[in-house]
């Protein structure tokens, strides 16, 4: 095809449009200004679009600057679902669950059942545990040296300081655990707020292990804070009381 036309380069300056610009030559003129009547369906269809979009625009609180997010848009934690949102638990169960983990490091000496051994006192049925709640809190936070009398028996073991890295949640958890396990039965729940009271007292005292005498003299009282019934439903992670629903 192409070798037979080499005698006439098609894009030279003396363009013969009839021969070389065949495509441009056969082009149609354009008639641009039609004015056919619009179909009713087109108008109705466009009106439907406007209606739906208008519903979106004016249906909500478009200029509400307080609520950034449409109500109900963000998904709620599903009831009875394992994955999303934590299921509320009874306060005592939730606190003890946290405390049980903390108690793992106590059980070497005090034993998993809280019975203690010859050097370390038992936690089960001990007045030091179930009595005024500031005393056990101080022992945990500060440690204890010098002998301690428990149920008429003398124990020589040294309790090391456990306060490092112990936050109010963990402290409350472990206090509730030892006060409500091994056959112990405390009448009051130690809340996070009460544990914060203990942390405050401990901070004011400064570091160094306490003695049994010091505990009885200075710290023989209950922890301060609002009380919470043991069967209140709480969020197992934050330990905040769960919403009423």
């Amino acid at each position, binding site marked *: 095809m192409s070798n037979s036309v080499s005698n006439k380069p098609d894009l030279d300056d003396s363009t013969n449009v009839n021969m070389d610009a065949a*495509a441009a030559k056969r082009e149609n*003129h354009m008639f641009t200004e039609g004015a056919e009547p619009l179909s009713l369906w087109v108008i109705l269809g466009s009106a439907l679009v406007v209606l739906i979009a208008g519903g979106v625009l004016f249906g909500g609180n478009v200029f509400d600057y307080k609520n950034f997010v449409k109500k109900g848009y963000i998904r709620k934690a599903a009831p009875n679902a394992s994955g999303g949102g934590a299921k509320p638990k009874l306060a005592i169960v939730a606190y003890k669950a946290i405390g049980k983990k903390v108690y793992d490091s106590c059980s070497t000496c005090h034993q998993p059942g809280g019975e203690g051994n010859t050097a370390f006192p038992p936690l089960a049925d001990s007045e030091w545990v179930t009595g005024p709640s500031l005393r056990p809190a101080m022992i945990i936070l500060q440690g204890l040296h010098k002998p301690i009398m428990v149920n008429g028996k003398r124990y020589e073991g040294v309790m090391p300081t456990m306060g490092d890295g112990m936050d109010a949640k963990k402290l409350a958890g472990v206090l509730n655990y030892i006060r409500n396990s091994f056959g112990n039965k405390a009448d009051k729940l130690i809340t996070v707020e009460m544990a914060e009271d203990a942390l405050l007292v401990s901070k004011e005292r400064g570091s160094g292990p306490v003695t049994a005498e010091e505990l009885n003299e200075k710290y023989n009282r209950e922890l301060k804070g609002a009380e919470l019934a043991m069967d209140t439903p709480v969020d197992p992670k934050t330990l905040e009381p769960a919403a009423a629903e």
Partner: protein
Amino acid sequence: MSELSHDSSTEDTQLRAEIDRSLRHPVMFFFTSGAAWLAVSLILGVLASIKSHNPEFLGECAQLQYGRVFPAHLNALVYGWGVQAGFGVLIWLMARLSRQPSRNAGTILVAGHIWNLGVSIGIIGILFGFGTGKQWMEFPTFVWPLLLAAYAVIAIWSLVAFRIRRGEHVYISQWYVLGALLWFPWIYLTANLYVNVFDVHPLMATAINRWFRQAMILLFFAPIAIASAYYITAKVTARAIYNYTYAVGGFWALAIIAPWAGMHAVMGSPIPVFLQYVGAAAAMLVAVPLIAAGVNILKTASQSGEATAHSPSLRFTVAGIFGMLLLAVLGLILAHPDAIAYTQFSTAVYGYEVLALYGFFSMCMFGAIYFIVPRVTRREWLSRRLIRTHFWFSIYGVLLIVLFCSILGGFQQGAAQRAYDESWSSAVLSMFPYVVATTLAWCAILYANIFFFIHLTLMWIRLGRRSSHPTLLRHDHTTVSPHGPEGDIEELENAKA
């Protein structure tokens, strides 16, 4: 087409031929390099799609991981193919409609090379880990001023051509081209300044990024495609635009509505509520101007069914306009806040963008290319079979990706993501058949466009058919060549001599 043609006067033909000649180098450069980028983008798209269901494919080469290949695929599609095809069509259309031959083809060509250099640096930058991670803006940040400068040099001459146009009448395509010419620098500069330069809150930068993506579709790609469709349809059918007032109204409605759309994509995030809801309403309302253009073009084309069936330009254009109407419907569905809750983090967003970029814009661009290239090269397309392959594999591929994988798959994915009592991995695994089908669909589109690229390259190197008979998609089985008797140009010449 031939029985509808009205003989143009020689003067008109001469002017057309002069305009076509003046722009032949930049137009062919934009089309051919665009088609090459399209092929690159599709190869990367196939690769990214395979990686999404078969991560071990091609081993552990860092340059070929999904996180780099996927943005490279999208950016090559947008800046390599989409914008360049748009450049080719808009400079040619503006010159033709303003009846002004271009006097700056060399400058445009140089700027076109700079644009290609920028895109190449950007794509290589993404593949080697210098991407920004902001969708459609993944090029390393020093690339965007280069691209913007190249754009200015390319586009300014079309504005000049419009300013000194012959005749007072402004055709509807000119409105759309003019809109695209002015909107692109606005959205591109604004988005890049706020996302890449100014110290904007990251959340707001994300919202601006989403606005940018929507605006690129509605304010750059859509106007060029609609301009081209109005032109091709009126040209090929030789019919008046169905209702011209409605067409012009559609343009102004698009200009007013489209800039608001986009930020609905981040619905539920703590940015002011009105941005989200105005965005959603605008993304839905934009269906009104799209319907206006669609009805006008389809009504005009339907008056000449034969031309629609036989002319490759018109067939691709009409397919693209159907894609546009589907885009309007999908926009209406996907931008509704109730649907966003499901589709926000699903493949439906990708499907919407693929439909806009390929099913609508690219199909209209193919239509324009099949119309323009024979005029600027003065050669006819070589093979109607290649054109048919290009058309049908494109249609199959894009329908499979958009309707099946992205929309159906997207809603299923969204529903699976919201199933709180199921693990997240089950939501991911439920997408497996859809991503495999996406791979197949991209393979089909790649197949179509490799042939398109070869066909276009042959035209570019002037190996097209030399004939006065256009290449039409007819099915007649005659003994003569489907393109009419060969070599009739020589016969004409001999007869004259």
